[in-house]
Each structure stands twice: as C-alpha cells, then as structure tokens.
C-alpha cells in the first residue's frame, strides 16, 4: 500500500502544528466557536450529543497493521475502548476531548495517518472498491488513481470552502462496489477500444434530502487528464453551486438545474483552459504511485486444498461462513475474507480495541499485513491462503467477527444516529439491534438470501437508506421518533432509489414491518429471485398492502389506540 515520502510527512506534520495552534487559540478565546467550527470540521472533529467525535481518514479504505494497532491505542488512551467504522471507509471515535485532539493527530502522523478533510464543505476522503487489486472482476486497479486524487485534493486552496461537502468514489471492476452512482463525482476506470486507460465520469449523484443517480458527463477521459478535469468540475461547482440553502447546495442540485448536458458543456469549456497544462499527469508519477500497489509476494498454490475441502464438507458453520464471508480472489489458492462487524447485540460497525489488535495480528499472519474497511462497515483481509481459511475462521470466530451474514439481512448499514449524532432526528442503532435480534436465526437469513437493509437517523443519509433494498429513515414527528420505510433501492451496477411505502412507524413496530415485507417476498418469489428482484418485478404495491393490512402493535398496551401507523 502507499507509503509516505518526506513531502507527505512534512505536510501532515505542518497540519498537526497548524491545528494544535488553532485549538490553543480557541481555548484562549482568540477564535470564536463560529470561526473555529469550519477549521475543526476540516480536521474531522464534530461536536456530538455527549462529546467530540473525531473521524480519521482511511484513504480509499486501505490500512496497514501498524495503523490498525494505532486505532486500538487511540481507542484505549483517548476514547472508551472502541471505534466505529463508517460508510466512507473511515473510522471515528465518539468520546474525544478537544484538548487532546492535537495529540491524537500527532500520534496518527507517526503511522502516516491524519483526519484532514474528513468533514466540512471540502473534498472528502476518496472512496473505492474494498476488493481493489484482488477482485476477480477487476479491469484496472483504481487505487493508484485514488491516491493521486488524495494528494491533489489535500489542502486544495481553491476548493476548501465549497457550497457543500464533496465526495468522490472510484471503481475499476465490472461490479461497482464503491457506490459511484450516488457520489458527487463517480469515476469508473475503463479501457477504450484501443486498450487505453481512462475514466467514465459521473457527476451529480447523491443521497440526502434529494436522492439522485449521477449522470455520465464524459464517456472516456484519458487518465492523464484526471486532475485537470476534476479541477474544471470543481471550479464550475464552486462558482455556481447554490449557497443560499444548505439543502440545495450539493452539486447534484446544480447539475439538475442546468441539465447534465449543459453542466458538461460548462466543464468542457473550463477544462479547455487548463487541459494539457502542468497539472496533467505523467507516466512517471503514475508509475511512482502504482509501485505501491503491485501484488504482494503470492505463492504459487493449487486452486484447491484437501484439508480445506474436508472441513467445508464436515462443518456446516464453516461452510456457511465460506458461503457468505469469503470472496473469490484473482490469484489461485487465495481468497478475500470479510470480517463481519455486524454481530447481533453490537452496534453495526463498532469495533473494540482488543478486536482491532487482533485484526492487526491476523493481517500480519495471514494477509501481508494489510486490512481494508468496506463502505458496508466491515473489514477485509484481502489475501488469505485458502489452506489457512479454517484456522482464520476459528480465530475470527473467537473474537466475534465471524458472523456469517455478509450481504444478509443483519449485515445492516447503519449511521450512529440519535444515540450520538446531533443531526439525527431519531435513533438508528436500537432499530438495527431490534431487527438483528428478531431475525437472528441464520437459517432464516440464508433462506432470505442477499438483501441490503440500510438505516439512517436523518435525511443526510449517512446510512445510505435510499439505496437499501429496504431503507429505513428516522424522522421527527411532533418531537417523537418515527421511521419511514422504502423498498426497491439498490447500489452497484443497477443503482436505484427506493420508494417510500407509506406512513411512518414507531420504533416498536419496525421488526414486524420488516417481517411483513419479507413474508410477501417469501410468498411471491420465484426460485431464483432475490428480494430486490421481486420488488422490481411486482412493484411496491403488494408489499405496501400487506404491511398496512392490519394494525401493528406499538409495544405499549394502551388498547386499540396504541395500534397506529
């Protein structure tokens, strides 16, 4: 993976000093809170309900084992012993003291990490495919480009105070695992007919209050022009994006108002001026960065392993785990292992210091010392020998990270919600937990098969509810917490935005709502259909009719009146 050189170290070190002085000036009241707010946000520090939260950047989800150990150290020394994996492949800590935050950044810098631009109205951490470099369906490894974008976007002087936050995702495989269609900019690394590498450029996707799928504004952008083209997009947005209403300030609103064609025309006009200028990428620079992403020293191994096959045949629990949590690898004899951070009873994405240390050791022993964070809030060991899978499974199981539920009902994407976040309208973690408890039966989950259940505690959609096959959104109605349900959303190559099925529900009703949605699917599905396929074939009506056919108890015993929708 990428390693800092003297320049990266220098810039991060100077950032720590700058931020330390900003904190000092805030504490000395030389900076007002209003003046300090955007500064701390651009360093990932949010004021939450109970304390500050610090979000640390994990560039395109890639971590080394020393970095994972540093998270464990931070969890113990500065937090309450755990961290939370986010849907932008980052990690955040929820119980941080402002006074200690510069020290945390200084410690992070020792392992080539920072919290730069993990919040605020600037270019955020670029996200990518968690299986980059190992996926069997990969066309081009997107990570060198993601690193090039990381460096370009870090402290870009012109784009630090955009109308709103700005998120870029990049994918280089047949299957889009980076949700590129719901990003401000989505990049697909592709090859043209001549075999040259470039990008398909999507702009204006997003979730939040106005979910929109991104529009392609350029089918093929030769890779050398990546940075000048991004600069052109950002310059058009910085000048013309709305600033009068924060809910209409994302680039998607501008693209929609202008039309994708007109927006593309303005970008191309802007680009003409800087195209082929000094910011044009060179083969040397691409090579410098790509060398960090060359394959690790794989052994030449047979595709199968006798002992492995025997365990798989004998041990149903192991077989279940293989089926759900182990993914195909492009190198014979290896597999990618997903560690489920979605154990029932634990908030989705929460991981303890002990688990982090364990994962770091496991990565050193079995996966070339590398770990990845997925945007579904799980972890990946990307390069595990098939012959070692059984041992890895036993070790992982003992740490509570082997729930065989990847892609299943209880692999819930969930934001921190009202338990922590001051933006939230409603709690999201207890909803996830209640659903996980109700459907904890693995046989049932395996029967339901692939399904994405996403929960956001407010319209900002950190829990990606719009693209959940079932999406749950916390809303505020007269000061109490309610949940709006949508179905039919999807991410990946056939991204779609879910449709709301009707009036919202109370927290206590939610497990039954999910049960009813699933029972319609079970009754109506054809043999090969996943939940999303059945919804797409039938539309939402049969689901809606059944969910609302009879009252659902709220859980309080106040007679019939308690049965509300």
């Amino acid at each position, binding site marked *: 993976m990428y390693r800092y050189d003297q*320049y990266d170290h220098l810039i991060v070190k100077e950032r720590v000093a700058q931020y330390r002085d900003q904190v000092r000036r805030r504490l000395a009241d030389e900076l007002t809170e209003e003046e300090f707010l955007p500064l701390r946000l651009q360093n990932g520090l949010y004021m939450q309900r109970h304390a500050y939260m610090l979000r640390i950047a994990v560039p395109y989800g890639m971590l080394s084992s020393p970095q994972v150990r540093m998270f464990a150290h931070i969890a113990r020394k500065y937090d309450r012993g755990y961290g939370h994996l986010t849907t932008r492949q980052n990690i955040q800590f929820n119980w941080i003291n402002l006074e200690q935050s510069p020290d945390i950044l200084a410690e992070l810098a020792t392992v080539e990490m920072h919290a730069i631009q993990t919040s605020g109205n600037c270019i955020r951490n670029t996200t990518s495919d968690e299986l980059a470099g190992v996926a069997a369906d990969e066309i081009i490894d997107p990570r060198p480009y993601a690193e090039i974008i990381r460096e370009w976007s870090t402290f870009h002087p*012109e784009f630090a105070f955009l109308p709103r936050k700005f998120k870029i995702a990049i994918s280089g495989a047949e299957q889009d695992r980076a949700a590129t269609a719901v990003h401000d900019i989505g990049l697909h690394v592709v090859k043209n007919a001549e075999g040259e590498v470039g990008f398909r450029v999507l702009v204006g996707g997003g979730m939040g209050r106005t979910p929109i799928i991104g529009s392609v504004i350029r089918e093929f952008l030769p890779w050398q022009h990546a940075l000048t083209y991004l600069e052109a997009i950002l310059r058009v947005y910085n000048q013309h994006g709305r600033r009068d209403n924060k809910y209409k300030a994302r680039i998607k609103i501008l693209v929609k108002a202008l039309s994708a064609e007109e927006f593309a025309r303005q970008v191309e006009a802007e680009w003409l001026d800087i195209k082929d200028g000094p910011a044009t990428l060179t083969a040397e620079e691409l090579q410098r960065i790509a060398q960090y992403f060359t394959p690790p020293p794989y052994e030449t191994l047979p595709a199968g392993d006798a002992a492995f096959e025997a365990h798989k045949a004998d041990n149903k629990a192991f077989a279940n785990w293989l089926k759900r949590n182990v993914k195909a690898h492009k190198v014979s004899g290896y597999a990618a292992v997903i560690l489920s951070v979605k154990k029932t009873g634990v908030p989705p994405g929460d991981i303890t210091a002990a688990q982090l240390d364990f994962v770091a050791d496991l990565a050193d022993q079995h996966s070339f010392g590398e770990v990845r964070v997925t945007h579904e809030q799980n972890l990946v060991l990307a390069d595990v020998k098939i012959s070692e899978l059984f041992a890895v499974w036993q070790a992982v199981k003992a740490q509570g990270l082997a729930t065989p539920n990847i892609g299943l009902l209880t692999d819930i994407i969930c934001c921190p919600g009202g338990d922590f976040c001051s933006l939230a309208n409603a709690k999201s973690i207890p909803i996830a937990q209640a659903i996980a408890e109700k459907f904890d039966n693995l046989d049932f989950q395996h029967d339901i098969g692939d399904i994405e259940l996403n929960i956001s505690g407010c319209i900002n959609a950190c829990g990606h509810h719009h693209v959940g096959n079932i999406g749950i959104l916390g809303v505020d109605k007269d000061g109490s917490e309610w949940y709006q349900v949508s179905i039919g959303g999807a991410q990946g190559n056939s991204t779609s935005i879910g449709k709301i099925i009707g009036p919202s529900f109370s927290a206590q009703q939610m497990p039954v709502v999910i049960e009813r949605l699933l029972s319609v699917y079970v009754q109506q599905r054809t043999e090969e259909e996943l939940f999303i396929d059945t919804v797409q074939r039938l539309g939402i009506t049969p689901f809606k009719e059944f969910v609302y056919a009879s009252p659902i108890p709220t859980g309080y015993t106040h007679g019939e009146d308690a049965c509300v929708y």
Partner: protein
Amino acid sequence: MERTPVSTNIIKNRNVVADDWSVLRLNEGDSADSVSIPAGRVIVPFSVWTAQRAQLLERAEIGVWLSSDAQADVVKDDLARFSLIAVDFPKFTDGRGYSIAYNLRTRLGYNGELRAIGDVLRDQLFYMQRVGFNAFAVRADKDINDALKGLTDFSEKYQTSWDEKTPLFRRVQRQALAQD
C-alpha cells in the same frame, strides 16, 4: 453611503503596511449611479464603477471590488484602469472569492494588487495567497500581526494554483522513505 476604513494596516506582499484606501459599500437606499464618492483613494463596488465610469475615469487612482457572486470576466476590459482590485468575502466560509481570484490571475492575466476584503481571517490566508491574493485587509477586530502567521502554515503543497504553477510530482524527485 458608508465609507469604512478597513483598517489602517493591511498585509501586503507578506508585510504589515499602512494603507489609506477605503472601501465604499452601498447602504440601503444608496444607488450605484447617484452615490457620492469621496475624494482620495477609494475602492468602489463594481456596480458603481459601471454606473459612474465616466467620472471615475478622471480620477488618478481608483480601485474596484467584486462581490462573491461576481465572475472575474466582468472587469476583463478594464484591468489596466484599476490601481487595485479587491474581492469581498461576506463570510469566510463563502469560497467563491477563491475562484474569482484564480480566474483574475490566470485567465485574465491581472498582475496588479489583488486584495481580500470582508471577513478575512488568519486561518484562510494561506489558501488566499495560493490562488493569487497578495493583499489582505484582515478583519478590523483581529490582530493583524497574528494573522500574518497564517501565510506560512505550510511549506509544501501538492497541487498547482496561481502561486505554484508546477505540481509537486513535476517539481521534485519523490521517493519513498526506507520501508520498515
């Protein structure tokens, strides 16, 4: 009409210097074509420049300021007539002024004084100088000598802008430190 002496001092070319320009801002009820412009060195709003161009041309020195919703292009035919151009930051979080400055410098080739006015604070100065500002009317309630430190927060940068035409990857030989 309100004539605000921004401060008696500004930062210019990385030094704190005395300054006697004042910024003319239209109050409610003022109109661009009738507002009276005091004698001396005045930075007028672009709307006043347009409305009173003929008489302003008679002055020995005149400055103009652009609001954050303006495009740099509006002054392209008059660049040589201004002693200075200012860009207003109504709030430091309004980042449009950065693109205005960049365009004035790179696209229009403006090489005179480019001054940031309005909500101009220490922690944004580094970015402002990178896109082309060389003068900063730091908000009057702030310590200008303290603000000066903001210009030197970083000694290296990855990407191009007005101040650095060559990206880091073309400027230096980059090499990984010894892998541990």
